[in-house]
């Protein structure tokens, strides 16, 4: 436990060594010194892992951080190499990135955009991070992405599901591997129609903020296209903890499906409440009443406990996937930490590797070069099958998983089972439908 040399701006490292004992100070501006923000000139490169460490998503953040630490280990040639073994691109050598040892700094987003930006700025300004990654909500992702665009570093989003991140708020320096509301809707609808029929009446409870709106919209559009009717959509405050007054009137409305467009604590509580009301034991319109949760995460499933059993939802990735990449990742992560990784961990790990690979292929840390290498990059072997990083909006297109709460879990991690792997083609959409402007890449400096 003695290495982990806390670096600062690479510029300085050489400067400091050369300048030691030199009396005459040198004044320089960032512009004249480097070609782009935080250009690493020493023997190492610093990445910034910005995850929620306090606040309600702290556990998710902890899992993201584990994934990043694993990724750094693999990039530096440690461990079993992880997904570098199965990744279709073979640019990574296990000798760091472009031969520079990978080091990292961590920060706490607190799941607040202000705190997340403060933390990201400190990584960029103080620690000389050349890439920022992580996060567990769309508010934070959009805020930090905009910051990275201004500062001239690459942002590799963590868990963010809103259409906005690569839609109306997309930025040239930002990239998202995670899927979004639209894809959830598109993937879920056919499965719901198969299982519950096309003659269904849905009641939506929607978290009253951007992500809730887009998710409701996506699920609504795609289920209505299958023939479902939307009876009502009621918005619930983010700060709501007891959803009983929203759930109680559901049966009266004549709906036979309840869609919970909720995330995190909201979802855990609304689902728990809905199951408590015994909705799933009811027969409405001669059909079994059903509940749908468009976006699942393992931590949410864990928080809701047995209430998730038999409930459909979508997820970005799940450890029970049987492709080579997923198996390899579960192996590496599980061996190191003793339990299977979450989807947040998977996305973060993959994002770190994708960045490193793009740098290798571009031969430079310059965000514009990296961005170019990532745009329209097609790869495989990272789980989720063949994947495309679309150039127009920097959104990844890959298979989306439709999952269901498992009836007989064997462990506290075995809560979801994969029902369907929806192929990429079904969830692909036109890049222009959400508006927004990607802009030009900004190398800073």
């Amino acid at each position: 436990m003695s290495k982990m040399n806390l670096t600062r701006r690479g510029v300085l490292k050489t400067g400091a060594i050369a300048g030691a004992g030199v009396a005459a100070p040198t004044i320089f501006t960032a512009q004249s010194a480097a070609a782009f923000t935080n250009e690493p000139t020493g023997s190492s490169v610093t990445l910034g892992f910005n995850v929620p460490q306090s606040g309600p998503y702290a556990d998710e953040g902890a899992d993201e951080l584990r994934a990043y630490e694993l990724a750094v280990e693999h990039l530096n040639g440690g461990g079993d190499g992880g997904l570098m073994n199965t990744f279709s691109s073979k640019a990574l050598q296990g000798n760091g990135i472009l031969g520079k040892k990978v080091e990292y700094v961590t920060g706490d987003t607190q799941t607040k955009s202000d705190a997340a930006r403060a933390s990201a700025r400190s990584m960029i300004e103080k620690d000389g991070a050349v890439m920022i990654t992580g996060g567990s909500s769309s508010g934070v992702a959009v805020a930090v992405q905009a910051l990275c665009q201004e500062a001239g570093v690459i942002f590799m989003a963590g868990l963010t599901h809103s259409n906005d991140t690569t839609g109306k708020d997309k930025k040239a320096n930002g990239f998202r591997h995670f899927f979004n509301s639209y894809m959830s809707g598109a993937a879920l609808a056919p499965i719901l129609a198969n299982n519950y029929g096309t003659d269904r009446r849905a009641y939506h409870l929607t978290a009253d903020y951007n992500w809730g709106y887009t998710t409701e919209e996506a699920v609504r559009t795609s289920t209505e296209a299958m023939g479902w009717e939307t009876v009502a959509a009621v918005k619930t405050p983010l700060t709501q903890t007891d959803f009983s007054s929203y759930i109680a009137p559901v049966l009266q409305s004549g709906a036979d499906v309840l869609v919970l467009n909720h995330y995190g604590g909201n979802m855990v509580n609304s689902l728990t409440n809905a199951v408590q009301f015994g909705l799933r034991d009811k027969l409405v319109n001669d059909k079994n009443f059903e509940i749908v949760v468009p976006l699942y995460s393992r931590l949410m499933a864990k928080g809701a406990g047995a209430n998730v059993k038999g409930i459909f939802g979508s997820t970005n990735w799940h450890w029970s996937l049987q492709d080579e990449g997923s198996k390899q990742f579960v192996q590496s992560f599980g061996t190191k930490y003793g339990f299977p990784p979450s989807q947040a961990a998977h996305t973060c790990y993959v994002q770190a590797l994708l960045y490193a690979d793009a740098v290798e292929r571009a031969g430079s840390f310059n965000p514009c070069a990296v961005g170019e290498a990532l745009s329209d990059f097609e790869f495989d072997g990272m789980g989720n099958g063949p994947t495309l990083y679309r150039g127009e909006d920097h959104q990844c297109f890959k298979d989306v998983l439709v999952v269901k709460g498992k009836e007989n879990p064997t462990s506290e991690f075995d809560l979801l089972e994969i029902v369907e792997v929806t192929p990429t083609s079904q969830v692909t959409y036109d890049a222009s439908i959400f508006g927004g402007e990607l802009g030009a890449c900004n190398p800073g400096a």
Partner: protein
Amino acid sequence: MDAIILQILNGLDKGSAYALIALGLTLIFGTLGVVNFAHGALFMIGAFCAVTLSRLLQISHTVIDETQKDFLGNPLQVEVPYIYDIFGQATGDVIIDWAVPISILFAIPVMVLIGVAMERGLIKHFYSRPHADQILVTFGLAIVLQEIIKYYYGANPIPTPAPDAFKGSFDFGAALGFDPNTIIYPYWRLVYFAFAAIIIGGVFAFLQFTTFGMVVRAGMADRETVQLLGINIDKRFTLMFGLAAAVAGLAGVMYTPINSPNYHMGMDFLVLSFVVVVVGGMGSLPGAVLAGFLLGILESFASMREVLEFLPGINQIIIYLVAIIILLTRPRGLMGRKGVMED
């Protein structure tokens, strides 16, 4: 009509949680004159008593099951609770299933102890300090308590279900002659309501009919005189703090099946419970209970989609709007005594 009945029912149920928390807050304010911002944290600790007990009951040893594989392909390690070894699997399962009700017994001594320790160790030094100082020190304490809980239990909510016997819901609609399924209500929430009623009734009876209660009530009205009578009111007040903590804790224990407990559930309730206390009237126990139910019902009505269509976002602000209106028109709250913390 049935929609209205449903929301009243709902409001009563929500209100019972608010009323329980506000009752404890008011006990402390009324007897000790202390504004306790850590009261929400006591509620949260109560909930974690249930989590802790349920974990204690499930302390396990592992048995390797060669027939099953874990996620890495190794033989599965099956956790077997010791309680199975003692009582056999069937009885053991029942005990684990009933963890939440059993926690009541566990939580009472724990909460009283925490309450007494808090009062003796911290609060008592703040009786003569301004309200602002009391608010601040208890706020600091609330942060510390919730961070400690977070450190040991993580930030994620922990599911703590009710016993199987209480699963599902009761169909009031069918019972009252409406269409079936129009007015359903979960059994556990009915239990919670009944439980809250019993606790509230118990506290009132205790204050009304016991000598201890009479002295405390006298002390609430006029501390100095009671002290002049040679009664050690301080000791009784300490016990009152323990009682208030126990009320908050029990409210928390019984709340766990309704919402999975997490470390910040106390803070979520804190602002709201203060609004309840202020609306009811600082220092008025019946006021706290009344305001709890009233705000619960108003909140329920504000969440109806028929209302939201007219007033989008009203569900976001209803509680605060009511607080502002009450404070401006009737500053001592619904049932507050004149002159208690008034201008």
